[in-house]
């Protein structure tokens, strides 16, 4: 294997680990749609950065962080709108803005359309560093606010009623969600990122006991999906993104079957 592919594998592992960890909170809060919603915000941010000639990294980060934080206004018990319905409306808006931006572009649109499936095979060292830093920032956040995040996962209503600084921690979480998804977008793509957020975390929730083991398993599953998916695509000469998505779905299916068997035995 060419040494370049080790960098691709490493980039996939870092992206898989950070999205897997992020997925623990997104799936746990029953809002997996947030992944595809924010990644489309980032996509719109990238397109308008190109159109306006501003920094193509800063644009999507700011765009997705702002759009994810604006979802913080949907409060349990207060908002008349369900969080997932709000996400769906937001997703439609971002999709509209994205395609409007694409329509306004002149020349080749392949770079922009590549954001849908990502371009893992064209990874640069600088992108890996940025993804690793954003992942590390999220790890620090999750460690510092671990006790608050656990209550938020269990019930935002309880968190709010009992004096946990729910709004503050939730908005911070959404902003970091935007950051992690935006920097992963060019590499992983808007569609694949959705599967890397949901499948590893959902698989971990099936088989683990205790929050710490969920975090550990989801991170490993995310990393494993990316690396195994890449190896399958490399040796069988298949599309990388599709292989990663399928491997992550297989990990979920195996975990769900294992849990069902364990329950049957008990």
């Amino acid at each position, binding site marked *: 294997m060419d040494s370049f592919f080790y960098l691709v594998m490493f980039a996939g592992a870092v992206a898989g680990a950070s999205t897997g960890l992020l997925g623990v909170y997104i799936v*746990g809060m*029953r809002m997996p749609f947030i992944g595809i919603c924010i990644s489309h915000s980032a996509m719109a941010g990238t397109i308008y950065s190109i159109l306006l000639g501003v920094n193509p990294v800063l644009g999507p980060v700011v765009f997705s962080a702002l759009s994810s934080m604006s979802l913080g206004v949907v409060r*349990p*018990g*207060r908002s008349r709108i369900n969080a997932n319905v709000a996400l769906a409306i937001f997703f439609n808006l971002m999709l509209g803005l994205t395609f409007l931006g694409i329509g306004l572009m002149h020349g080749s649109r392949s770079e922009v359309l590549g954001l849908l499936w990502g371009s893992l095979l064209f990874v640069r060292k600088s992108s890996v560093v940025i993804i690793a830093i954003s992942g590390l920032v999220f790890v620090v956040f999750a460690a*510092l*606010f*671990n*006790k*608050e995040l*656990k*209550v938020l*996962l*269990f*019930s935002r*209503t*309880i*968190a*709010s*009623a*009992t*004096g*946990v*600084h*729910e*709004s*503050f*921690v939730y908005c911070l979480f959404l902003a970091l969600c935007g950051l992690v998804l935006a920097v992963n977008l060019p590499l992983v793509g808007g569609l694949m990122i959705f599967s890397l957020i949901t499948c590893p975390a959902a698989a971990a*929730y099936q088989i*683990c*006991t*205790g*929050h710490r*083991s*969920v975090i550990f398993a989801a991170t490993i599953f995310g990393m494993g999906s990316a690396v195994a998916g890449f190896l399958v695509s490399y040796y069988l000469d298949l599309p990388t993104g599709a292989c990663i998505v399928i491997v992550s779905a297989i990990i979920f299916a195996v975990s769900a079957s294992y849990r069902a068997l364990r329950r049957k035995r008990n």
Partner: protein
Amino acid sequence: MMGECLSLSDVEVRWSGRTILAVEDMQIRQGEFVGIIGTNGAGKTTLLKVCCGLIRPNRGIVKLDEHDLSELSAWRKANLRKHIGYIPQAAEYNAELPFTLRELVAMGRTSVKALLRRLNKEDYEVVDNWIERLGLSERRSQTFRSLSGGEQQKALIARAMAQDPEILMLDEPCSNLDFNWKYQITEIIEQLHRETKVTVVMVSHETSLLPSGCKRAVLLHEGNILADGDIEEVLESEVLERAYQCRIEMLTLAGRRYTVNKS
């Protein structure tokens, strides 16, 4: 005389142009056990959520510990709510997550500790103490989702008590439980009230679930308080008949008041 820990004056909550709660005046004193009863859609849960600041009324003043909630910033309001132990209905928490029972009870210590501070040995001593007190020691390493409905309710009570609350608010803590568990859970709540002097506000559909320690009842009907006072006076057949629109006979057995529909 005991001080007020919660008061509502001239409170109105509207939803889609319709008034779903209108409370002219209501005070809850420290150490009281107040049962909130009423028909479906009477506004029981809304009243509880207004009391703990989860729903901001369209009009009126809600005071917690003599602080007007509407005048406080989100940060100060959160600090004030550290003393509220809240147990919502099952639809408002995610019972499917694989938190262990000990992790769940430890969540009660979250608001007691400042942001960025980790739980320490003393916190876990409090957690283990409440797990033991509620008879769940053997289940502490099991996941919350693997417990029975009654055990889950006990775990939620342990979580709320680990918070060392001054006021405990429970929204139908016995729904979906069999009659034996209903009895056990209400006995536990009464015992906690007696031993710790915590103020209890409990929403219930059934009058028989209000334990003998509950000395005050608030009867809601179509968002209004129909009766508020001594439980003996509120749970009178004539008073309940006005709310439930049927003929009612009250039976008292072992200190509990059972409602029988005679229509």
